[in-house]
């Protein structure tokens, strides 16, 4: 079992980040919420509805979309087909109209996707693929957006751009749960954070507090290494 005894809450309209080292269990949380993890013990609720036993498509229908680790777009499909796949669960007549509106919205967020609409998604750069993955998740009209390591393998400027988009989305009313190894950037952007270590939460709080916390600084922010070294001696 990767995680044990974890309790966390994500308030509406806020960005919550889970930080921690590799294998601490951050992604497992997202897998459990999105239904990709088949069985888990305990309880996960979204807007008062239990997510127990739901498969991923049902979770998407409830209003939770995952932007998976490594983006996982569909490379041979065009950018437009990738986006349309995001709206797969919205197929009834009136939903078709909202899907067109959502597409407009995604394209205003990431204009580059419209320029590249007919290209195979595999030809996009890493940053563009990340934008596509976020756009695809938004197409399902979620209220909660789960992101797994969106900064992975991207240049700092692009990470900044992606994170700015997330802040913009939060201000629009989306709720965001973000898993990150890039702790500094994540904590600077998010409202609240949870620090994971070997499958449990060791610290939690407003990000402003966490950024000041000695343990967090030492373990994740690469600061005060001198102090740390002296303590050891």
């Amino acid at each position, binding site marked *: 079992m990767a995680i044990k005894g974890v309790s966390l809450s994500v308030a509406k309209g806020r960005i919550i980040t889970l930080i921690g080292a590799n294998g601490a269990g951050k992604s497992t949380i997202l897998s459990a919420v999105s239904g990709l993890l088949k069985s888990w013990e305990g309880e996960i609720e979204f807007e008062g509805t239990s997510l127990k036993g739901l498969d991923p498509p049902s979770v998407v229908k409830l209003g939770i979309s995952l932007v998976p680790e490594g983006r996982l777009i569909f490379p041979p499909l065009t950018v437009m*087909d990738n986006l349309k*796949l995001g709206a797969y669960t919205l197929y009834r007549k009136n939903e078709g109209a909202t899907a067109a509106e959502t597409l407009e919205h995604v394209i205003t967020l990431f204009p580059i996707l419209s320029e590249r609409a007919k290209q195979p998604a595999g030809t996009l750069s890493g940053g563009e693929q990340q934008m596509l993955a976020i756009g695809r998740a938004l197409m399902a009209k979620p209220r909660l957006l789960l992101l797994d390591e969106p900064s992975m393998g991207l240049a700092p400027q692009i990470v900044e751009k992606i994170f700015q988009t997330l802040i913009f989305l939060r201000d629009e009313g989306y709720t965001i749960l973000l898993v990150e190894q890039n702790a500094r950037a994540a904590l600077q952007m998010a409202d609240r954070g949870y620090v994971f270590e070997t499958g449990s939460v060791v610290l939690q709080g407003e990000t402003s507090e966490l950024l000041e916390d000695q343990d967090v600084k030492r373990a994740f922010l690469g600061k005060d290494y001198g102090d740390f070294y002296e303590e050891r001696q």
Partner: protein
Amino acid sequence: MNKPYWYRIAYVAVAAIVILTGILVSNAYYLQLLTFIGINTLLALGLNMLMGYAGQISLGHAAFYGIGAYTTAILTVHYAISPWLALPAAILIAMAIAYIVGVPTLKLSGYYLGMGTLGFGMIIHILFREWSSITGGASGFIGIPPLEFGPVSFASGRNYFYLVWGFVLLSLIICRRIIDSRVGRGLRSIHDGEKTARAVGVDTSQLKLQVFVLSAAFSALAGFLYAHLVYFISPGTFDFITSIRIVTMVVIGGMASIWGALLGASLLTLLPEWLHSFSEFEMVVYGLILMSVMIFLPQGLTRGLMDIYERSKKSQNR
């Protein structure tokens, strides 16, 4: 230029070629060969939806081909039912069996799915051979009536050719429609990553089952057309080798391409005829040709020929 426009031109072109061929070709042998290409195209088209688009292999599709053929044979001969009523019955029975077999089998993937469908194909083949009171057993089923529609008889080579190719065109259009729809996008997403497809909200297990049932329907249609073309069917036509031949048509023609089904079916139907002159070396040459296609055009004929065309265009521009 938008895509649907080109597709429409392609359909009109194929339809024109079919009509012209029907008028110009009067040799009965050639007409029958072309009719067989049409039947094989239906088989390859159905399997291509499953294999090429959804990425799920089936090594037992000859079973559905056989179910289509035997259903119409049994209904028209034993029960004297009109073939036109036997056609929907054949398709529905094949779809029902595909559904029942698909529910447990499609939970498998990769080699295991191949093994599962292989086993299914063999069981059905044995059933055709051993259930002799109904199927006629190993010696086959004789006396299947020719098709007629009012005053029009499809017993002649030309009319049957038009009938089969009418079904082929219709099927090409149906497949194209499905592929360009929401369901088609879902199918292609399964091919690229089933887990991600699920995370996006695609109910992959339901979709795989649906496409499996659909491909069974195409195979049954092909079986129906085959039975009323040759008036005689025997278990040997629907064995494991036939399943492999359908897979080969899809792979050689080009996966995930409906025109690939047409090309692959044409090549695999025509090759043995062309190679008769090699007499005992026929199978060797046949194998060599298939191997060279796979070595030099690993993406299949459709993609391979398109690549060659694009390359020649580029080198001209230089």
